[in-house]
């Protein structure tokens, strides 16, 4: 198998899901499974309406952390490639925040690795969300369920 494709980006701009998928499939016919996950800004946080979301990150460490997480996925599953894109800055409800895409000859590796990437990204990549609500802006609290989801993959 040729060296897997790895594309990691931390960016303010939106991304095009179809174009990102093409990175993994273009010019080859051996990909049997392409899984994508797109995270979007919800218009509610619990019971509270959310009108905007500011995403702060740690330039330098963010790119490093996402690359390490993606390399872990490539080491654990027989993948032909992985794409991880995370946006920062001011986002509005329904905007895309994050994209994970994985390609593999068979679906199990693609599904599992995409889930792994999201679980690890949520607990290890240095991003912080601040929601704008009718009562003002508030930092989003980390969720214990995210830690539990990441823990089931073991330590890296």
């Amino acid at each position, binding site marked *: 198998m040729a060296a897997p494709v790895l594309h990691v980006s931390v960016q303010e701009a939106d991304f095009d899901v179809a174009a990102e998928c093409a990175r993994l499939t273009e010019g080859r016919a051996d990909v049997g499974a392409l899984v994508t996950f797109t995270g979007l800004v919800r218009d509610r946080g619990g019971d509270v309406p959310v009108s905007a979301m500011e995403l702060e990150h740690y330039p330098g460490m963010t790119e490093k952390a996402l690359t390490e997480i993606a390399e872990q996925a490539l080491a654990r599953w027989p993948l032909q490639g992985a794409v991880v894109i995370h946006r920062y800055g001011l986002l509005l409800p329904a905007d895309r925040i994050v994209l994970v895409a994985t390609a593999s000859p068979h679906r199990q590796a693609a599904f599992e690795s995409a889930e792994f990437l999201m679980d690890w990204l949520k607990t290890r990549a240095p991003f912080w969300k601040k929601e704008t609500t009718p009562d003002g802006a508030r*930092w989003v609290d980390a969720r214990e369920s995210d830690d539990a989801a990441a823990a089931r993959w073991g330590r890296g």
Partner: protein
Amino acid sequence: MRVLYFAWLRERIGAGREEVETSAPTLAALVEELRARSEGHALAFDDLSAVRAAVDQEAAELDAPLRNAREVAFFPPVTGG
């Protein structure tokens, strides 16, 4: 040493970065020194169970040694994705 703050730690301290002269042997010792700098610092480090850290852009526990670290960052648990 460069010290960076993110999210509500940055807001409480009133700055995203500062240069610090220190010989603190561990992150925990550095936190004690930073706490004394201002009321904002004290407030930011009030509850250490809500503070995470990185040394030279690698996640680190608060008892981690600092050795010759060039950049230390403090931030709340991450909430990306």
